[in-house]
């Protein structure tokens, strides 16, 4: 029987979130990187704005180096990957050594990318390992709540990121639909009022980004007033 502590359910959820953050931000970065090669020096300005992270970078090169690889920059992709690892490494018996290994491999790939002249190739390996991690988790974890918690984290993070990046209306709607089917299988308490509100917001043509972010980030707050009672 799968019994989970609060700590582990939390860690599973955040493992889902950080793995998704690494995945989506690398993909987004890769898109921009191409345009930055010979194009405008300050393209990263826009990127930071879209990602809602402070622009602390002094040049294009500085941005590439630190945003991707500086572990001490809390907004860097590397820092987020380490957070994913920190959650994964304490979940060995929940997710299994085989699944955990892919996060470990992503870390190695990230370290290689750091010292590479063509970081995109190595960053692609990071993405490959994240995707393999998800696949292995889905395939090998018996407990539905364990699997669902990772997936829920992934969905929540994606909705948050898509809202920040002003991703299209239909993408957001798709992710919300997946969230709706997943959330009940986790055993987590959530606010059904907020979920209903999110569904409503996603229907609007000009999706109000800030409201979506606020609602998704407080979906699991402690003092929630759920429709389904206590």
């Amino acid at each position: 029987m799968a019994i989970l502590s609060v700590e582990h359910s939390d860690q599973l959820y955040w493992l889902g979130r950080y793995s998704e953050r690494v995945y989506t931000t690398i993909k987004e970065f890769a898109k921009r990187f191409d345009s930055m090669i010979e194009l405008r020096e300050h393209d990263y300005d826009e990127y930071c704005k879209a990602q809602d992270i402070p622009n602390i970078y002094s040049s294009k090169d500085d941005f590439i180096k630190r945003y991707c690889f500086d572990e001490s920059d809390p907004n860097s992709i590397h820092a987020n990957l380490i957070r994913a690892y920190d959650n994964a490494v304490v979940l060995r018996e929940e997710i299994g050594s085989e699944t955990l290994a892919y996060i470990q491999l992503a870390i190695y790939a990230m370290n290689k990318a750091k010292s590479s002249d063509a970081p995109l190739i190595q960053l692609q390996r990071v993405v490959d390992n994240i995707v393999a991690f998800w696949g292995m988790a889905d395939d090998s974890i018996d407990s539905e709540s364990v699997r669902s918690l990772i997936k829920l984290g992934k969905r929540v993070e994606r909705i948050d990121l898509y809202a920040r990046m002003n991703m299209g209306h239909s993408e957001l709607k798709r992710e919300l639909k997946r969230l709706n089917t997943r959330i009940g299988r986790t055993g987590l308490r959530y606010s059904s009022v907020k979920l209903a509100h999110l569904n409503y917001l996603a229907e609007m043509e000009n999706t109000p980004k800030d409201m979506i972010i606020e609602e998704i980030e407080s979906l699991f707050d402690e003092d929630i007033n759920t429709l389904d009672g206590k």
Partner: protein
Amino acid sequence: MNKEGMNSYSDTVNELLARYGVRFGIYKNGTFKEQLFPLDIIPRKIGQKEVEYLEKGLKQRVMALNEFIKDIYGEKKIIRNNVIPEEFVYMGSGYLAQCEGVCPAKEIYTHISGIDLVQAKDGQWFVLEDNLRIPSGASYPMIARDICRKSSPAIFEKNAIYENRNYAKMLRKAMDHVNVGGHTVILTPGRYNAAYFEHSYLAEHTGAHLVTGNELVVENDHLYFVDYSGRKEKVGAVYRRISDEYLDPMNFNSESVIGIPHIYDIYRKGNVSLMNAPGNGVADDKGIYYFVPEMISYYLDEEPILHNAPTYLPFYEKDMKYVIENFDDLVLKDVAEAGGYGVVFGQGMTKDEKERFISMLKKEPRRFIAQEVIDFRDIDIFEDGEKVPRKADLRAFVLMAEEPMVWKSGLTRFSRNPDSFIVNSSQGGGFKDTWVLENDLSPTIL
């Protein structure tokens, strides 16, 4: 296997170790670092006859040690009969007054024992130490075997080697045997513990839950695991990988934040099993080690099968004299230390250091033991494409359920340094798989 073959086998194996994060942690200058635990591909091989001998000797030793702990916290016959002087029992840091009169489930104290052995050049085995508190290391040969079988199936096809991945099953058996009803958990201090990899690996393979202290509570005289939905699940056995002093702030070190308040109270009532039993330190003290052969005769009325390294207790005047006269030939150990710290060889000291050490010895004779240096066997390791001999010891594991069970494998640690006898991982050593062969030693490829 030729050199190229060995090179590529070694690379594959170490790559897989990295993939699975096989590490141990160390603290250097106050910060936590994890390093890979290097595996050497040449295994230690133990033949059938030899393993039968070791098996008998190890079972005997652990039975006697278990009896000893029971006696010390109970009747104390061995002291009353003057077999062991009481100052050796009560002055050691491992003796816990709180354990007086407490008897664990099925009278088992030593659920998991790690007995450190070396084999002298003439083939004779010597026990160097009995680890009865939290012996670690079994997970490394388990995962190494798994990886090696994948990396070179041919080797395992051609050699009849006992399975060692059954350690998890044996451990589970030992857990179930003393479980008083409820779940079994492995209690870890957390991921910044040196052996965290092992804790999580054993949890995965035994199916026990890996927990930290704050995930367990004592309520109504029972131990519970609190589920994320708020449900409370009873726990019947705790394989705890935190030491006695941190186990329960209400009964031991009150500063402990990794323990569980009142767990010791309910253990005393028999409402949960703790593996290993608190208070075992009284028997794995390096000073008490000296008396293990006597214990075997005393409790079991048998001749000891395994030998201690010849050991002297400066506490006895006669021994003190011998130690001072033969200082250069001896190894000295601080009884309160572990992990290879506090182990010094007389030979390596300057005149000044010797004098200082001897005056310390005279001041605190109970604090040290001295042993003849055993010129133990080298085993080849594969380094930079060559086979070179290095000192290696063996930690054998004995688990207790209905009967003591000896694991047909073990952790072989070796020194990376050609001139050193110290094999501890915290001192930079590596490890080998330990093969127990189903036949007697026959020529094998590796």
